[in-house]
């Protein structure tokens, strides 16, 4: 029986369901102290003085530490080396860390933090990324406030737009989005005077955490031992941010000699951790009379916040996808990540793609409407297919499932019999249907190629149980159970007896980050590589038992069969033991080569793409502007579903996050100060907001994927907001180009002709 491809129950779910899984906040160590962080109340200010005397006298406070106490470098290393662990002379965003207070209880630490007296001289803050680009704007970074600029160039777009039958122009605004993983950021660090530090915590990227702790303490990488704890959701929010949290906990432990824990409060977590970048996006798209896309010109400006963090590569991914999943010969894309005095934005499921998908999928819809073409037909006319070349010049192979995905949602939603031309609807409450097409480059791609590698360790015990570890993490997405399926499939062991060990930076090679929907492909292949060596041992031992050549043998669940007989796995393992065979192996995988020529703005940036189409149905109350999502159909080409139930879980969960992005989630600033950093004020979808979401799985395989699987976990979020906006247009005839589509915003569009396209 095949185990890969079936919906086995996740093996980490049992402990989680009984409440026994140990998250970072559940770790109890003897003598453990708590850390609180003193944070900037200003968007930008000079630090004149930090007076710690009053705080130090508070009962239970064990130490107050500032940038001057850092033994190594005051740096959280990432793409650029620009972000300090603790602000030194200037604070650059509301909530930036200024000092650490260690207390023997959380209450003591917090009381101490409140008592630290920091004198600031408030400075003028740069808040608007477009204004930050002005020549005479104050400079936060370099001589133009631009952290990074990327372009894609192909053909002659100006000529193509001149010759086009229709040119659609639009400017789109997208908001911040907060991850709101349910477990706040948390970290425990334990310095030992033997000369090493152990760090346990909630994280996506143990190797980034290691690098940051080594930097601030001035240690060898081998003296920083990072072990991931059970992690309560990430969605990108635990990619780079845990490096800072860990640096703070590690400093506290090193400077007090006690195990130290830092758990952010929810308010603090929303205030200071990374978010999806707000963006201003301008598009000009040209079409011929039949609706064929001739040229795309776009400018994508991201508000990156106070430090570069991951913005350069978030922007890169967005830029690579900015022409849409369509055939188009003439392209000119310019994208900029701009410094402002706000929270540094970073990775969030989709990584620079949801913003531009919202813009270009709105453009496609406007064009379809103007040309009188059905919106799904419009996309099918232009959809990339096997053998096509993308806007960046990448030639696609066989695994392009966009047409299948579009046809699947078309049929499942009964689109053809239910879609009506926009604007013809009457009545106060109106229904509408909208569609979007999506693609997602799998893995880190050419901009992150050096990190696109992964290691694994697998060991089969002589009782038939097995353990494994990989350098990527489980954060809820289902990695552990998929990799367990791979091991059970390859080695014949029972999946209930496969146990995952947590990622450990000293025992596993640097496997890069757990991001970019790369884990299934990367760690899956690394595990396969490790299993291949163990498998060889099992087969050689069986050959001796059955007297048959190795190539006549097949591993099945619990046994190895040959042409003339079979041996149980127990027998085979016993033989392996007697023959002193090594049933432990490491495994390794490097992603296939990708390319990016920055000067030309062309290349083959990704090893492959996942593809998707979404249909969203809404009901709009035109008197109040309230949009009620009724149903979603989401079809995703995942290559091969190793565990279909979990693929469905990713589609439904990701789609709902996308709905939150389109409908309700936004961060509000006033004069650079965040106003709604509480769960009661930052609204995410609850069970009552969730419409029926129909998950459709398309499998086109992938030549380098384990069993043909691609990564796709981020993709479900990306296409919901554009399909939603298109559905609202279909219901009302009003086009909203700013997310989220709140009742106030839609009401204004419905009742003020100026804001209407």
């Amino acid at each position, binding site marked *: 029986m095949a185990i890969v491809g079936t919906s086995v129950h996740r093996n980490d779910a049992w402990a989680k369901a009984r409440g026994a899984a140990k998250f970072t906040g559940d770790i109890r160590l003897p003598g453990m102290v708590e850390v609180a962080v003193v944070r900037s109340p200003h968007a930008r200010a000079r630090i004149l003085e930090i007076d710690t005397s009053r705080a130090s006298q508070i009962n239970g406070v064990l130490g107050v530490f500032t940038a001057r106490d850092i033994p190594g470098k005051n740096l959280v290393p990432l793409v650029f080396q620009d972000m300090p662990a603790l602000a030194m002379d200037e604070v650059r965003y509301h909530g930036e860390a200024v000092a650490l207070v260690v207390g023997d209880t959380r209450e003591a630490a917090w009381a101490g933090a409140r008592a630290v007296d920091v004198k600031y001289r408030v400075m003028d803050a740069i808040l608007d990324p477009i204004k930050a680009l002005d020549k005479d704007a104050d400079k936060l970074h370099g001589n133009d406030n631009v952290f990074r600029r990327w372009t894609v160039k192909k053909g002659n777009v100006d000529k193509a737009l001149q010759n086009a039958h229709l040119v659609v122009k639009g400017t789109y605004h997208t908001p911040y989005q907060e991850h709101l993983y349910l477990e706040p950021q948390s970290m425990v660090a334990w310095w030992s005077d033997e000369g090493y530090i152990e760090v346990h915590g909630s994280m996506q990227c143990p190797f980034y955490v290691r690098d940051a702790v080594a930097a601030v303490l001035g240690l060898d990488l081998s003296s920083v031992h990072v072990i991931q704890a059970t992690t309560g959701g990430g969605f990108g929010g635990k990619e780079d941010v845990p490096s800072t949290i860990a640096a703070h906990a590690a400093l506290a432990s090193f400077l007090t000699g006690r195990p130290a824990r830092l758990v952010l409060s929810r308010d603090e977590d929303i205030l200071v951790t990374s978010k999806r970048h707000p963006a201003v996006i301008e598009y000009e798209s040209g079409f011929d009379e039949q609706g064929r896309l001739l040229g795309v010109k776009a400018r994508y400006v991201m508000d990156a916040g106070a430090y570069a963090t991951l913005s350069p590569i978030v922007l890169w991914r967005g830029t690579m996808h900015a022409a849409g999943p369509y055939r188009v010969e003439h392209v000119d894309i310019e994208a900029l990540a701009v410094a402002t005095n706000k929270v540094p934005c970073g990775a969030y499921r989709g990584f620079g793609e949801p913003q531009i998908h919202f813009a270009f999928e709105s453009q496609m819809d406007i064009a379809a409407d103007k040309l009188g073409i059905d919106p799904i037909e419009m996309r099918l006319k232009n959809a990339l297919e096997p053998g096509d070349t993308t806007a960046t010049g990448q030639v696609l192979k066989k695994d392009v499932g966009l047409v299948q995905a579009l046809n699947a949602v078309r049929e499942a939603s009964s689109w053809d019999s239910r879609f009506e031309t926009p604007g013809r609807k009457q009545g106060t409450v109106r229904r509408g249907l909208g569609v979007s097409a999506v693609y997602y480059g799998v893995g880190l791609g050419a901009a992150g190629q050096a990190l696109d590698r992964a290691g694994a360790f697998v060991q089969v015990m002589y009782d038939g149980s097995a353990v494994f570890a990989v350098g990527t993490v489980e*954060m809820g997405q289902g990695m552990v159970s998929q990799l367990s399926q791979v091991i059970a499939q390859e080695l014949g062991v029972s999946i209930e007896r496969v146990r995952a060990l947590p990622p450990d930076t000293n025992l596993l090679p640097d496997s890069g980050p757990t991001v970019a929907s790369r884990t299934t492909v990367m760690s899956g292949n690394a595990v396969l590589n490790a299993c291949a060596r163990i498998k060889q041992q099992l087969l050689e031992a069986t050959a001796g038992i059955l007297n048959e050549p190795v190539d006549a043998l097949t591993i099945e669940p619990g046994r190895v069969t040959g042409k003339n007989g079979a041996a149980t796995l127990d027998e085979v393992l016993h033989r392996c033991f007697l023959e002193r065979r090594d049933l432990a192996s490491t495994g390794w995988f490097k992603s296939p080569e990708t390319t990016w020529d920055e000067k030309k703005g062309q290349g083959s940036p990704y090893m492959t793409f996942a593809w998707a189409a979404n249909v969203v149905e809404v009901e709009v109350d035109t008197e109040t502007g309230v949009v009620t999502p009724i149903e979603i159909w989401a079809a995703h080409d995942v290559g091969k579903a190793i565990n279909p139930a979990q693929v469905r879980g990713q589609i439904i969960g990701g789609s709902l996050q996308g709905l939150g992005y389109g409908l309700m989630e936004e961060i509000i600033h006033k004069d650079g100060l965040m106003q709604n950093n*509480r769960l009661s004020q930052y609204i995410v979808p609850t069970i009552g907001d969730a419409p*029926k979401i129909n998950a459709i799985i398309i499998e086109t395989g992938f030549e380098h994927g384990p069993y043909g699987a691609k990564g796709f976990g981020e993709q479900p979020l990306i296409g919901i907001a554009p399909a939603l906006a298109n559905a609202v247009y279909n219901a009302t005839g009003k086009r909203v180009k700013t997310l989220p589509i709140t009742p106030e915003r839609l009401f204004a569009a419905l009742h003020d002709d100026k804001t209407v396209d």
Partner: protein
Amino acid sequence: MRIEFEVNNRPVVLDTEPDRRLLDVLRDDLGLLSVKEGCSEGECGACTVILNGRAVLSCLTMVGQVQGGRILTSEGLVKDGELHPIQKAFVEAGAVQCGFCTPGFVMSSYALLQRNPNPDEDAIKQALSGNICRCTGYAQLIEAVQAAAKANNE
């Protein structure tokens, strides 16, 4: 102050300040770590426990308020090492991803099925509306409660 109550069918006697959060007492004094803190202000439901048969938010409940009460947490649903049918249904329906919200959802579901063994979808949504899950998209949670109700009635 001396406070007596029952947790997971065992008597507890504590000498503590009555204005401490029940959440902290359960986690720090009694080691019941299934009770999670997601927001500290009554918005996420991760800290849900059963008090005298009703689901309450332990981050908003002071320990002085539970004097003489009966409390149940996710740990208390496990009998002889076997998961409770609701917990099993969560695993089997795929309602667990990161698992941080899970104990809270399990307790809200338990309270619902105690007072309504046959809830329809609206009743389930109503009962779980105070719990946030950022991973699953909720569909599998509804399916889990339906499966648990069915298993219970068989």
